[in-house]
């Protein structure tokens, strides 16, 4: 329902008339008139509580004052705020006096100083002098709630914003109000960390300096900072952020409110992993291999690369992290200048028809749709770890009464609000098929899901995650489920601009807008804009490119913002590929593990240093703004691509971002994908890969490049590598909890500490992709799942002693 359908109420605030939907709180109605009523506990994204009592207003005809944050508007109400009511103003001053009784006078050393609602109000209308003669409350401080969040109880005004956030929004109820009366205080339980990937939001919404980030304590003053609005570059949530710099270095990232996207929240990775662009490993000059890698000019590199590429056997690997404009430039470069479709950004290759739709049609399913859904089916996605803000939106829907179902090999943090069906990774397709085919009844999980989907119709959302793309059919089966019940559908991949890359055609079979390379009409539409488009046959996928490299079928491999040794599931293949391709051109912020392989390096500007757009999982393209200029000689990727094109004797046809956008706009306009039956016809029975199945995906906080330098974040949230095994499987193999296991596949083996848990499906073994100690890709070959065997490593000393006795 939009506001237009809702019942409207007209009232006056300080004599000004306003009409708002029924149910609106007075404080919100006043805001719409530009009247700010002071508040501490009130937060537009949290439920009203009426605890701080700061927002008193007078209501004509009422004896008692009312808190405007808990009182809904009524027809004909005459509300008088502090601006027109002396009584309301007196009450606000008196309340401020109460709040300041025990508040320390440490503003000069408080991180909140200069941007503190309490300080602002005290200055604006607080009592100038305190009538309080007694000693103030004293607490030990600061208390480390986690490696990221510190608590100063003396500054706390007990507004309960932080605890309500953990209760209502994240569900990570590790901080609570303890005790009562004047002894009431925010606390964690002894021995229990505030281990939540959303913990930093509590710092941001704290209306005083009680909660502070360890990364920002004593780091800066608001007047020291320069600030720019941007979009987070970590995952496909598309969070709107504000980046604060001091002397050119990022010191803080904050969430910006956007009800269409991230509400008011970001995850801790987005908030605290900002150091990577400023690390010593950053390279900001072009390099070319002579004796070693020597600094040269861009033009020298371009010339060399053009010479290497003359034979035409060129391929491009990239990640889902190039901004929209740069992705478009690369897509065009590969096709029109190098004449190849060997370009790919994906890690999991089987998006199927769902991928084509995602490329063609942005915003078919949005955060709003998720929020309002009555039924949500999530398959192949660990939302909290992969797309955290989507996870929060699913929780929000659940709080509003949505039924949530999850199909996944491993329990997710939606567990308290969703029904999970844990199944081996290769069984997810089968579960989806059974949902598709179910005829009602309410016996099985599949019956319940299909019945719920049927009832909800268009008010249901089916979310297919990247894990499904491991199976050639699974995403399309999920799509068929959505189509059968009339549900909305979203294919959600993880990296910040995966969707933008897909839209731009960084895909061997798809051109911009999801147009198929192999379809004459669709290819023709691109040709009309570009002039030429390269071959009509689809190119190689990322994996096929690496295989071709390994077979020496490629001469020049461009690695644009990607490190196949770390980012792809088959480390051995990546190593062979790099060894067997003649020229490796690396473009990005640093060389890292690619240093021994690189023949040329092209320094790119960091996320925070460029203009452009980024497309979130919904397909929403949002502008990001440079918060500073590119370091050293580094340049935005699209400029590098334009330079390369020129060196190759070509021309990308745009000399500025505006020209680029103008050209791309037509090709990226939403288009309907012709109805096409999916390849899926039913597999009948689940296919078992083997005795056990190893599966892997990156956790939110791991050894990924973008997390380098985020030490406190890692201390708070990063686990060393581990393997999860179901108790039934453990028992059969004599594996004991807390011991070690050897996970063996054809590709390799891993020796890991084991957790025995029912949170992983029987028959499945989970190893996170890139935790410290043991990256999973040493044991992965084709993709992120792999047949495997597990055996206990040498029993621990305790059981030895037992045996000896």
């Amino acid at each position, binding site marked *: 329902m939009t506001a237009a359908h809702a019942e409207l109420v007209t009232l006056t605030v300080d004599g000004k008339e306003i009409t708002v939907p029924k149910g609106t709180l007075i404080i919100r109605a006043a805001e719409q008139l530009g009247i700010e009523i002071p508040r501490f506990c009130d937060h537009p994204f949290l439920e*009203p*509580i*009426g*605890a*701080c*009592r*700061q927002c*008193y207003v007078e209501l004509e005809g009422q*004896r*008692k*004052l009312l808190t405007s944050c*808990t009182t809904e508007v009524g027809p004909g109400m005459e509300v008088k705020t502090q601006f027109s009511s002396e009584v309301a103003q007196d*009450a606000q001053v*008196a*309340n401020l*006096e*109460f*709040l300041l*009784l*025990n508040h320390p006078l440490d503003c000069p050393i408080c991180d909140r100083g200069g941007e503190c609602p309490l300080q602002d109000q005290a200055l604006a209308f607080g009592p100038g002098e305190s*009538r*309080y*003669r*007694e*000693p*103030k*409350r*004293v*607490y030990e401080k600061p208390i480390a709630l986690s490696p990221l969040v510190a608590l100063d109880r003396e500054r706390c*005004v*007990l507004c*309960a914003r932080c605890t309500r956030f953990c209760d209502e929004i994240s569900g990570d109820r590790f901080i609570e*109000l303890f*005790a*009562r*009366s*004047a*002894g*009431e*205080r925010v606390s964690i339980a002894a021995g229990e960390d505030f281990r939540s990937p959303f913990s930093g939001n509590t710092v941001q919404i704290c209306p005083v300096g009680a909660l502070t980030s360890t990364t920002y304590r004593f780091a800066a003053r608001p007047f020291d900072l320069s600030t720019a609005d941007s979009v987070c570059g970590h995952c496909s949530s598309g969070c709107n952020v504000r980046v604060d710099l001091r002397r050119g270095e990022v010191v803080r990232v904050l969430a910006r409110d956007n009800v269409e996207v991230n509400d008011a929240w970001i995850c801790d990775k987005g908030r605290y992993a900002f150091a990577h662009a400023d690390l010593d490993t950053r390279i900001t000059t072009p390099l070319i291999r002579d004796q070693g890698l020597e600094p040269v000019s861009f033009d020298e590199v371009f010339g060399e690369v053009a010479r290497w590429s003359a034979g035409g056997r060129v391929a491009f690997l990239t990640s889902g992290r190039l901004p929209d404009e740069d992705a478009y430039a690369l897509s065009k470069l590969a096709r029109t200048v190098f004449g190849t479709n060997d370009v790919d950004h994906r890690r999991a290759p089987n998006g199927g028809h769902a991928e084509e739709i995602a490329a063609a049609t942005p915003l078919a399913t949005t955060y709003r749709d998720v929020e309002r859904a009555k039924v949500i089916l999530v398959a192949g996605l660990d939302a909290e770890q992969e797309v955290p803000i989507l996870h929060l939106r699913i929780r929000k829907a659940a709080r509003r009464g949505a039924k949530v179902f999850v199909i996944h090999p491993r329990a997710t943090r939606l567990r308290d609000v969703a029904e999970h069906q844990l199944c081996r990774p290769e069984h997810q397709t089968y579960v989806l098929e059974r949902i598709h085919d179910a005829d009602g009844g309410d016996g099985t999980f599949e019956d319940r899901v299909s019945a719920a989907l049927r009832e909800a119709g268009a008010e249901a959302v089916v979310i297919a995650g990247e894990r499904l793309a491991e199976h050639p059919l699974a995403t399309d089966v999920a799509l068929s489920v959505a189509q059968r019940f009339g549900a909305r559908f979203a294919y959600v991949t993880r990296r910040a601009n995966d969707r933008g890359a897909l839209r731009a055609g960084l895909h061997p079979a798809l051109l911009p807008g999801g147009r198929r390379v192999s379809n004459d009409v669709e290819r023709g539409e691109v040709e009309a804009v570009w002039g030429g488009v390269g071959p009509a046959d689809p190119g190689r996928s990322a994996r096929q490119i690496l295989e071709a490299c390994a077979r020496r079928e490629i001469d020049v491999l461009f690695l644009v913002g990607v490190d196949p040794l770390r980012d792809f599931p088959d480390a051995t293949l990546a190593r062979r590929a790099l060894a067997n391709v003649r020229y490796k051109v690396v473009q990005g912020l640093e060389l890292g593990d690619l240093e021994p392989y690189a023949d040329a390096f092209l320094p790119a500007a960091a996320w925070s240093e460029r203009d452009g757009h980024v497309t979130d999982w919904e397909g929403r393209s949002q502008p990001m703004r440079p918060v500073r200029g590119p370091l050293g000689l580094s340049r935005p990727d699209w400029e590098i691509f334009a330079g390369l094109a020129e060196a190759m004797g070509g021309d990308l046809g745009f000399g500025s971002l505006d020209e680029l956008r103008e050209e791309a706009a037509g090709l990226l306009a939403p288009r309907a994908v012709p109805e096409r039956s999916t390849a899926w016809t039913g597999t009948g029975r689940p296919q078992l890969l083997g005795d056990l199945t190893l599966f892997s995906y990156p956790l939110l906080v791991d050894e990924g490049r973008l997390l380098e330098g985020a030490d406190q974040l890692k201390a708070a949230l990063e686990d060393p590598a581990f393997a999860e095994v179901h108790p039934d499987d453990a028992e059969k193999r004599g594996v004991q909890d807390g011991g070690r296991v050897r996970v063996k596949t054809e590709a390799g083996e891993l020796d890991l500490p084991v957790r025995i848990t029912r949170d992983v499906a029987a028959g499945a073994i989970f190893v996170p992709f890139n935790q410290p100690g043991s990256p999973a890709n040493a044991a992965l070959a084709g993709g992120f799942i792999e047949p495997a065997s597990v055996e206990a490593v040498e029993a621990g000393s305790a059981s030895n002693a037992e045996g000896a006795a």
Partner: protein
Amino acid sequence: MTDPIITANWGNPDVVGIDGYVAAGGYESLRTALGMTPADLIDVVKASGLRGRGGAGFPTGVKWSFVPQDTGKPTYAVANFDESEPGTFNNRELIERDPHQFLEGLAIATYAIGSHEAYVYCRGEFLWPDQVLERAIAEAFAKGVFGDDVLGTGYPMNVIQHRGAGAYICGEETALLSSLEGFRGQPRLRPPFPAVEGLYGCPTLINNVETLCNVPHIVRNGASWFAGIGPEKSPGTKIFSVSGKVERPGNYELPMGTTLETLLEEHAGGVLGGRRLKAWTPGGSSTPMLTDEHRDVALDFESVAAAGSLLGTGAIIVMDETDCIVEATRRLVAFYAHESCGKCTPCREGTWWVSRVLGRIESGYGRPEDLPLLDDIGKNILFRAFCALADGAVSPIQSSLRYFRDEYEQHIAERRCPFTGAGPGVQTHGREVEGSGLSEVLG
């Protein structure tokens, strides 16, 4: 002189057991009620004019009628046996001496709102009374008063006893519900009102023990019988709990509208040792104190309000001429500071501040500007807090300053307590609030 109604059985120890209670005519009203429609039953209680005895005096029948029917959710009846208002002790004795009378009233109320599930929220500190009730409930189940087939009518009714754990605020009905649901006992926003969204988000009726004890008698004797007792707007009897400086402290069931004079002199034996009446609370510590001049005030909702106080729970705490009003006020405010749930600012900070200022005055560290300060803090707390607990704290502050300001001034001028001699270097009696540092000042 009206005969006692709800304390009529107090002389008969046999009624504690169900057989004795039945022999005395017990559970007949429940049988009668089960033969009526819920709507008729509610009409009878409405017509009787019975008002809630927990303090607020809301018409009981009207409250019953607010509970919506056919919502598709369960409906709950909750009895509030969290009697904690200082000076109040009638619920405890009603349960100790006649538990089945209460259970009968609860059963009738539960039936009247179409509920099958009743909870009794018991004060945890009432270890023995709670055991009396536990045994009575077990007997009632055994005799078919509760269970799948109440008195053979086929109406199922379950009763669950739930003990609190030491928090005055849980007597406030929304805080009680928070506590019963397993949360900290902090009050909740209204609306939604408990009648609509109460326990577990379902329609819920909450009644005080004394209120429910009246119900079987109204069903038995009729609405007009009850309405004919006492004043028109506050019909029935009230159990007045009398304590403090009187010769015969205790519970006295008298018609509403009985004057303090009658209660004190004819029933409670007058002020202890024949001393002069100095101050008294009409309805527990949360109601403004009155003085010797108010002896003739009739103890009913309207008359006490007209005298500038509240009938509250009808708990009369009597202070005589040797008692220090500043210390009495300090002790009461310290109670509110200790029992404040912590949720809202004026209550949490205000009661704490006042208790410290009063502690200073009582121990000889008062300053002349403290009295206007106390006036001001009281004004700034009153009607500004989340719930009525803080207003209760303001009652002793404002009333003592109104009637005994000279005594405060004397404390400040003499730099000591004129009654106890407490002053600089002389320790007074202090209460610690955990983590508050309160003891630093009062120690």
